């Protein structure tokens, strides 16, 4: 399931980016360092992911899950999205 997310995540990233992106997007690409994402682009990414996966996603908990903005990679987003798909039920109370 986790692996199946990646093409749709890549589509969402391409839809949300405002800066030119590399031809090939890799899991280790950092949104901040490599892809030029700022907080506005991150907000667009939330909606682009919703368009891909069909349910509302807020990315704030993913953003705060890393200890450094440079650690926000496509790979870490893939893991986050997969966790939302796979039986997530009820956020932290």
């Amino acid at each position, binding site marked *: 399931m986790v692996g199946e997310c990646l093409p749709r995540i890549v589509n969402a990233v391409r839809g949300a*980016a*405002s*800066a030119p992106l590399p031809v090939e997007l890799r899991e280790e690409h950092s949104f*901040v360092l490599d892809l*030029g*994402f*700022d*907080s*506005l*682009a*991150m*907000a*667009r990414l*939330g*909606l682009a992911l919703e368009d891909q996966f069909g*349910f*509302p*996603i*807020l*990315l*704030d*908990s993913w*953003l*705060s899950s*890393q*200890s*450094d*903005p440079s*650690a*926000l990679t496509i790979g870490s987003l893939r893991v986050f999205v997969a966790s*939302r*798909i796979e039986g*997530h*039920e*009820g*956020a*932290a*109370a």
Partner: protein
Amino acid sequence: MKAQPLSTETSDGVLTITLDTPACPVNIFTHEAAVQLLGIVGGIDTRRTRAVIFRSAKPHSFVNGASLMLASAVGKPEDLTRLTAPIRQAYRALGDLPIPTIEAIRGSCYGCGVELALRCKFRVAGDSYDAHFYMTEIADYLLVPTFGSTQYLPRMLGLESATNFLLWGERWPARRALEHGLIDGCFSDGELDAAAQQVARDLARDGTSPLLRVRGAPARSDVEAFGKRTRERIDRLPPEYRGVYATCYALIERAVLKDTLDAEDLEAEVQASARSVVAPISKASVGFFFVRQLNEQVSLRGAPAPSTFHVRCDMSAEAPRYFRAELEGRRIRGLTFDDLAARPGSPDALEVRAYGSAGLESSSARSLAICDTPEPAAPDLGGGPVLYAPAWRGGAAFVEIAYPEPAADGQRAFRLLARAGIHSITTRPKNTFVTNALLRAYLTPQVAFLAAGGTRWDLAATLLDLGFTRLPGDWLVGWDLDRLALVLDRGGARGVTGLPTTLASLPSTRELEGGTVSPSLENAVLASLLAFARAALREGSVVHPCAIDVAARELIDFPLGKTSLCRYLTVTRARRLGDQASSIASLVGVHVLDSVQQYADGKRDFYR
């Protein structure tokens, strides 16, 4: 090669540094900008460069902030110190330059943008609504600022102005910023760049400029008396908010009591900021930024962003006249008005009529109708989008833009209101406006609580405990309560005699006196709001939970520290509410309890 955020140009000994954050509609002072600014400042030969101007290339944004991802991705206090080091170094380098430095501010100047401006020796701004000043840190994110404002502002503005601006989140347009001493000159928007150049040349030559207002000493305050009042106000905030407000005010007071500013003062601010940024309540608050952005994208869906707006108002009716006066007062760049009666009209104009007037006939399908009092009847959207703003005259900058199908005029109205600093949601209301449904959901349990013998003090204590910083008695000022009562009466408060009087008696934060928290009322309010959110989404009145979240934040002041209404109301929380059904049944209708149970059984949060 990656585009650089800063560019430079030298003319007549004046170095102009221009910020233009690549591929972004607003300027953000990023790590890259900090590193580049350090390099530029480090390379200045002060024998040749006699003054520096810092300006923005973006017409609507000077600096809107550092990247919020920076705050989001701080896990430990020491991370903030490390992550913000380049920006603090760049600011310090700019401040240490021994030549005149001038910020030429065009567009919004928020948070760390204000703090950047404080490091220059002089600040001038363009006189348009876009050029307004606002410290977002506490007001929007419950954070202690990081880049020096708690130490610079009190020394520059005095205790009271600095506290109002920094702690209580006052927004200042350019002229007001000039009155308070935050800036030294205010020019018409078209003259700003030339004026900044002239000021720079004057300062380089004479050390002064006739274009600048002579700065007086900041107003002196009775620190002890003002501090007492401020701490009392902080004590009226919800418990989890008090720490960050008290810390921030302690830093402000420290600055006022100490004439000189040294590295130790700035370090104290950084340490306080680092502690605040990892607090759960700050993390939750930062999350609302993404909710707000989502609402804008869902509402606009790629609709074009015009640079100018022309609005024709029906000046024979009160609501359009009020609409025009409000927007004119905001001095929005590129906005022009004329009277709808004038002929011929511009084909691109937004035409604003009064809701319920002749403007709603089908022949005027392109028009907007505005309603600024509570409207209990079912929405009539036959004539085009309706701007429903019953809170408008009470001072809440919130508008529901209702239309049956996505319409270009509705989206243009959304953009126009956003540019004016007014928050909007777009809806497709069915039986009533979404705003009405939200008001009913929030106020009906409170009215029922009072009708059942609960006291205003217990009601106030309960809402405060839930995290509301403003209570209904604070924001219902200026409302037509007779019409609001008609709106509520349709929602289940029927049978409560004297409803307008009851609404007028709802408590405000000014009159809190040791009430007792009612867990039943807390649960009833949350259950009622949950049922409202589910109904609005299920019937399609709103297409996305973010619209509900923005409405709840702007209209009823749903607590920032809970991120947002739909974020907070998880399935887990609904199950707990369901467990308390018997204790809240007297305050809410059966349909509310049923809805809570269905949500709890459905296993899907509003957001995943």
